[in-house]
């Protein structure tokens, strides 16, 4: 494979295309609502109308508006249909030549779409994730070529550092700095690991990226491998995501076939292979040292750091671990430059972030927005607020490790530091919206039950502390607690936070602490004098 061949594949793909493409979302949300049948019926309808020469039907990745699915889009006309049923298929095809359509029209000018800035999701809903040709025609693998042929590994790392990209897996560690550490760590072999464990319930950004644009992640990993000198990569995907695993495996096979993975990539000295490791349902495996233990085939229990995986990771070798979304930013940064990327977002948080809007919100789905947008704009502007005339009460960011932010603080800009200031975290990007019907003490109990179940049991503060906190919350919700119990609750939260070994335990009290702070009246109402 060389640049010329890459361009040829892209050209052939463009020539193959029909003038009009009907994009049919086949990502999980729409898949679960009959999208495959819709696609089949659309194909039938095109043939029945004798329009195969002009129109093609393509299964594409998630369009983001999953709550209004199944979604169908006419390209390049930019017409969107929502809540499509298989019976709408003939009229959708007829509408291209002016017929009436029975499917509901979606509004592409709605802030939900108009205010987004897609980088990670640039190809989402536009290309068929099962065909590498479509990714290449959209400019894919050009950045990998560029990195290998026009830049030294040090220059690549420099470019990522200057872009200001920070890890999207939750902690926000500067990506360039991590790459530099791995590159200079001593070892006869280095590894690149992509963290696709996405255990935070309510978050599905990484699933969507893997399902909708798997090559984007593979290209980012390959660029990283070149930069840090790795020859083997792993993508760790949750077992709950069979569709993502299937599409990623197809993508790996296609990339191998086109020599974009394997030996001597682009006729250079870069050898890089990627294997999938399927998780088996343990939230703690998202933690990097637990994830390493799991890839090695063991129980996924964290270990103390340092040493960090960058120095001693898989089988004791220097290992770069980044999140799916982090890797999905890399190709665009190499393509358009760090100056462009660092111009997006805020001073401390550059670029965009994908959020999963779920819960009591009108427009459920995925949005990618520049960092620094306020919570209000995301929840009310893009998300359309609470459904059925309800009022949004709070939003939980960061899942079980995060905090509840009350509506009164919705002018907080979404960046790593601002969210931390109000007692939550950016987390991986889940935003669960609550309305008045949600009882915040029950919610805190719900999260504590989660952490209690998912505690790996290695250290005492987390193993025992989460159970004790959960019991206190049970006592409170049963209306049997006294003010002294609440004091004890606070003290326990502090203890578990300060003495747990890994992030799971350290952050488990966050939902309790934040609801105690912002919704004390809901606790008070349940306390016996």
């Amino acid at each position, binding site marked *: 494979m060389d640049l010329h061949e890459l361009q040829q594949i892209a050209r052939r793909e463009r020539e193959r295309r029909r003038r009009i493409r009907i994009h049919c979302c086949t990502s999980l949300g729409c898949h679960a609502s009959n999208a495959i049948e819709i696609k089949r019926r659309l194909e039938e309808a095109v043939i029945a109308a004798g329009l195969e020469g002009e129109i093609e039907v393509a299964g594409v990745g998630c369009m983001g508006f999953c709550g209004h699915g199944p979604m169908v889009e006419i390209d390049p006309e930019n017409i969107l249909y929502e809540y499509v049923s298989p019976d709408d298929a003939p009229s959708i095809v007829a509408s291209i030549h002016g017929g009436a359509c029975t499917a509901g029209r979606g509004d592409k000018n709605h802030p939900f779409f108009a205010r987004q800035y897609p980088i990670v999701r640039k190809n989402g809903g536009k290309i068929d994730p099962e065909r590498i040709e479509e990714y290449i025609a959209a400019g894919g693998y050009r950045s990998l070529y560029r990195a290998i042929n026009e830049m030294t590994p040090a220059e690549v790392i420099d470019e990522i550092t200057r872009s200001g990209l920070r890890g999207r897996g939750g902690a926000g560690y500067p990506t360039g700095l991590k790459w530099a550490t791995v590159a200079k760590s001593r070892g006869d072999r280095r590894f690149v690991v992509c963290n696709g464990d996405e255990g935070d319930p309510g978050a599905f950004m990484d699933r969507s990226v893997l399902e909708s644009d798997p090559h984007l992640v593979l290209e980012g990993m390959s660029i990283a491998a070149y930069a840090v000198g790795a020859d083997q990569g792993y993508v760790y995907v949750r*077992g709950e995501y069979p569709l993502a695993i299937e599409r990623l495996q197809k993508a790996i096979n296609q990339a191998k076939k086109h020599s974009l993975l394997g030996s001597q990539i682009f006729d250079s000295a870069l050898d890089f292979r990627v294997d999938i490791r399927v998780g088996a349902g343990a939230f703690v495996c998202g933690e990097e040292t637990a994830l390493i233990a799991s890839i090695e085939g063991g129980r996924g229990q964290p270990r103390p750091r340092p040493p960090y995986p960058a120095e001693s990771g898989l089988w004791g070798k220097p290992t770069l671990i980044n999140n799916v979304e982090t890797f999905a930013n890399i190709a665009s940064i190499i393509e358009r430059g760090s100056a462009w990327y660092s111009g997006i977002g805020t001073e401390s948080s550059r670029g965009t972030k994908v959020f999963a809007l779920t819960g009591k919100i009108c427009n459920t789905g995925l949005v990618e927005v520049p960092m620094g947008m306020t919570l209000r704009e995301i929840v009310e502007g893009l998300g359309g607020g609470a459904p059925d005339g309800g009022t949004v009460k709070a939003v939980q960011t960061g899942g079980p490790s995060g905090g509840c932010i009350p509506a009164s603080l919705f002018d907080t800009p979404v960046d790593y530091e601002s969210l931390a200031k109000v007692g939550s975290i950016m987390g991986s990007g889940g935003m669960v919206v609550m309305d008045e019907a949600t009882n915040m003490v029950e919610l805190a109990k719900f999260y504590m039950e989660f952490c209690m179940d998912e505690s790996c049991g290695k250290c005492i503060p987390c193993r025992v502390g989460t159970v004790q906190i959960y019991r206190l919350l049970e006592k409170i919700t049963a209306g049997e607690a006294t003010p002294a119990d609440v004091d004890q609750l606070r003290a326990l939260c502090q203890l578990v936070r300060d003495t747990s070994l890994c992030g799971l335990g350290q952050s488990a009290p966050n939902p309790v602490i934040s609801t105690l702070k912002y919704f004390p009246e809901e606790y008070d109402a349940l306390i016996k004098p």
Partner: protein
Amino acid sequence: METSSVSPHMRDTSASINDNRLKILEATMKRNQYRPDALIEVLHKAQELFGFLSPTLLISVARSLHLPPSRVYGVATFYHFFSLAPQGEHTCTICLGTACYVRGANNLMVAAEGAIGVSAGKTTADGTFSLASARCLGACGIAPAVIVDGVVAGNVTPRDLSARLVALLASPSKDESRT
């Protein structure tokens, strides 16, 4: 997802020597060069083939990968995905992740427990049905979500779900239709 209350009347999940499934499992281990780090992958395959991980199966995996049985057992019990007891012929998994919880997944669980007659994590005495809960299926965009016999469904109401489950319970089981 744990399962308890096992009935003797189950699909034939015991592994006999000439079982084709054992050959497939062997091939998976061979492809991984019997490396110990392939353990989780091998257990995934074993569960896919046999429906659950029986003690005999765990021991034979341990032997093939040259691992102590305690290590294999330790891994199999650590991960929620692996089930050490047989699953029912039909399975219903209800997501109790946050997005589904906020949209009333608890009511779905109540409805399912009512329809099937066992609580989450259990299998009916006749082995026809297993009920389980999950922590987010990634289908939060269409919450609340459930999986019935491997198929994900979204925006589920308690009424739809009970109707669906009652219908499945009433349909002749695979075992009976075979005889």
